[in-house]
């Protein structure tokens, strides 16, 4: 600043001196004003300028706090994203591990099934039976763990489609009738012609859990499997003449690792996750669950499924009603198997040949084309995932159908995504999830080969 401009001057001083005196006086005034200002700063009072300064200060504090808050929020978001990513990677890891475990397990199951078809000395038959049951347990446990992790991670997408309820219940009745009989129980099944809309695989898990529990906890008497039509949907019922569930425990049994009673024999190897899964699946499908029980008399579990309507173009499938005994169409059927795992290939070959099929196995399309040497097939059985570099099973099937139009295709996949299942259904292919259960494979083959006319 320039304070040097001359103003009033004392008479008795030289011009330079007067100038300096004046400047000195002004600087003193300025210094006094500044000191006064500094000393009055921060004093609470009604001065208007102080109110303005205060408002500026407050606004600045608010701005700073807002920034801090936004930073904290951003950090929270980042932490949440990280946690979600970690959870997702855990789920992916679990899915990958289970996929890798399922492959050899699948092969072992196929070998065992094939071995059971052989006539073996009595002690060996018993051992093979034990191995088979143990493998089945491992498979069930693994499946349960994968399912619960997938349900928790929210990666399981339901694949809702209309289907006749008999297609599910007939198979289950057959399967569990034998299991019940092994425990001295009678399974009473009442069939139904109702059509429902649901995810068949997920609904099957629910009903299987009901049935497994009913058999597990019922010492003597009857198991009931049936349906009741209601305006809101079809109620699938599983009743038993077991000990019943006390009122106060009816909620607890739907939580993880909760099991009732001391009924833990050698065959009972569950984790207590069954009804927890049922609860999650029913919630996801929006199918209400119901439990009625009279202690000492028995329990009745049910799940209510919405009514469905079949598209007019697809006549209801009859194949599901076929019992394992009606497998004569398999005799001599030419079946191509493509799986990049040679273990699975030889397991499949053993199983299929045991059913009288003529199996041709290959680990890739090229391999198959070499081995088939221009011959045709009755069914193509192809794994969806044929290795990192290779085209997937659907692409392979498409190539082979170019050569042989209308070739029935059964796709096998360890990927439980509804998308793949939906895709195969659109293409008119059959689809089986790994691990492949011999009974299901057999029925699927019979279905594809038009077994009901045999």
């Amino acid at each position, binding site marked *: 600043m320039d304070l040097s401009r001359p103003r009033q001057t004392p008479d008795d001083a030289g011009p330079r001196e007067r100038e300096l005196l004046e400047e000195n006086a002004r600087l003193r005034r300025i210094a006094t004003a500044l000191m006064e200002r500094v000393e*009055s700063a921060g004093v609470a009072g009604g001065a208007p300028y102080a109110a303005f300064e205060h408002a500026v200060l407050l606004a*600045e504090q608010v701005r700073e706090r807002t920034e801090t808050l936004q930073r904290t929020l951003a950090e929270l978001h980042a932490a949440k994203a990280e946690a979600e990513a970690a959870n997702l990677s855990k789920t992916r890891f679990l899915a990958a591990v289970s996929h890798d475990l399922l492959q050899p397990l699948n092969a072992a199951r196929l070998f065992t099934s094939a071995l059971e078809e052989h006539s073996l000395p009595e002690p060996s038959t018993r051992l093979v039976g034990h191995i088979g049951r143990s493998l089945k347990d491992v498979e069930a446990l693994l499946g349960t763990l994968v399912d619960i992790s997938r349900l928790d991670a929210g990666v399981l997408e339901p694949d809702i489609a209309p289907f006749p309820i008999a297609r599910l219940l007939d198979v289950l009745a057959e399967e569990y009738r034998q299991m019940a009989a092994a425990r001295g129980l009678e399974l009473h099944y009442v069939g139904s012609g109702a059509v429902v809309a649901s995810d068949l695989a997920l609904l099957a898990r629910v009903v299987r859990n009901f049935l497994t529990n009913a058999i597990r906890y019922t010492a003597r008497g009857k198991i009931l499997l049936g349906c009741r039509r209601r305006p809101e949907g079809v109620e699938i019922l599983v009743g038993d003449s077991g000990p019943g569930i006390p009122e106060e425990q009816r909620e607890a049994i739907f939580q993880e690792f909760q099991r009732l009673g001391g009924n833990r024999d050698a065959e009972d190897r569950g984790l207590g996750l069954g009804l927890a899964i049922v609860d999650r699946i029913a919630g996801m499908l929006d199918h209400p669950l119901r439990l009625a029980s009279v202690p000492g008399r028995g329990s009745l579990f049910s799940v209510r499924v919405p009514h469905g309507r079949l598209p007019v173009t697809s006549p209801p499938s009859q194949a599901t009603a076929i019992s394992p005994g009606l497998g004569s169409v398999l005799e001599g059927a030419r079946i191509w198997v493509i799986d990049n795992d040679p273990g699975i290939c030889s397991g499949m070959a053993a199983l299929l040949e045991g059913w009288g099929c003529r199996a041709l196995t290959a680990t890739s399309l090229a391999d198959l084309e070499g081995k088939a040497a221009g011959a045709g097939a009755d069914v193509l059985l192809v794994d969806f995932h044929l290795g990192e570099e290779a085209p997937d099973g659907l692409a392979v099937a498409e190539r082979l159908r170019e050569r042989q139009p209308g070739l029935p295709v059964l796709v096998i996949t360890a990927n439980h995504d509804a998308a793949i299942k939906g895709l195969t259904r659109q293409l008119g292919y059959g689809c089986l999830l790994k691990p492949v259960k011999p009974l299901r494979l057999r029925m699927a083959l019979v279905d594809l080969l038009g077994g009901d006319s045999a």
Partner: protein
Amino acid sequence: MLDLSPDTPVVPGPLEAEPPLRTAVSRRRDPEGAARELAGALRHAELGFVLFFCSAEYPLAALSSALDEAFEGVAVAGCTTAGEITPEGYARGCIVAIGLDRRHFAVSCALVEDLAGFDLIRAQRLVDGLLDDCRGRALAPVGEHSFALTLLDGLSSCEEQVLATLDAALGRIPSFGGSAGDDNRLAHTHVHADGRFHGQAAVVVMINTRLPFEVFTTHHLRPREEKLVVTRADRERRRVLELNALPAAEEYARLVGLPVEALAPEVFARHPLAVRLGEAHFVRSIQRVNDDGSLSFYCAVENGIVLTAMQPAPLLEDLEAVFAGLTARLGEPALVIGCDCFLRRLELESLGLVTPASRLLGRSRVIGFNTYGEQHHGMHINQTFTGVAIGSLPATPDA
């Protein structure tokens, strides 16, 4: 076929079909005609509130009753100006208004008549009343989705205390506003509420809406080297008697290189002074030169404050950047309510930039007025453009 005969009753269309805000301007000088013209453009079944800015040249009592009659049953608030901002940009001698649709805005309005006695208890009571009133009809959570608009008598010399007190009561509700003007005559400025104009008063309007909004302020002034110390001030009358221990007008004239006689609002606009608080500079605008060689200010002054000489950067570039930022954050604004210091307009006029400025304001959908001071989060500020930008609701899939 649709029946389009004139006697078909007018059925209000679906919500999406109606703009949430309507704007109108009347250049008619007779109050009745102007009020009728505004009502013709703004009135509809769901009109909930009218905000207006008018030239101080209108006969105010007559305008009040004309507005009252034209908008019967709808609350009206506003103030006099030092120039209006219409849909076509800057104007003078007219009245511009905004109609708020009650389906998009819950509005509550209060008048403060005793500015000197406006203490924290009264402020708290006033804000509580406004919030309760809004909450009754709230369209969105009141705490996060409301802002307050303040209109103050620009010659009351009470802005700082009233605003600081009000801001304390408002808490985290953002606020902004402007001081009423009177076309640079510095005689009488008025705010309007409760059906009439008031001097020495303030109007507080609480607006709650689901629409996104942002309260903002901007200026285009940059600090220079020179500093002036206030060595004598009359705080009651907002006068600086001495700068650097010399008569204030003389010292300021020396700073800007002009004779004292040449000091006029255009000069104050081009050569502002500011106080620095922390990193920010706040312009303290000079109102006029007094006969005793002192300078009157539009805001509070104090002995010992240090004023920094400021120089303007391109005004329109700054404003354009601000509007671009708002558009980026809110989407194309449906409306900007702008409180634009009249000194900015003087600067634009002296630079011959009124036409491009009007184009920018019109394009950016600004409705507002030229003020004798602006308000932002409890701060009384000068020579800024301060306001609120209101966005449009993002299109919802089920809408």
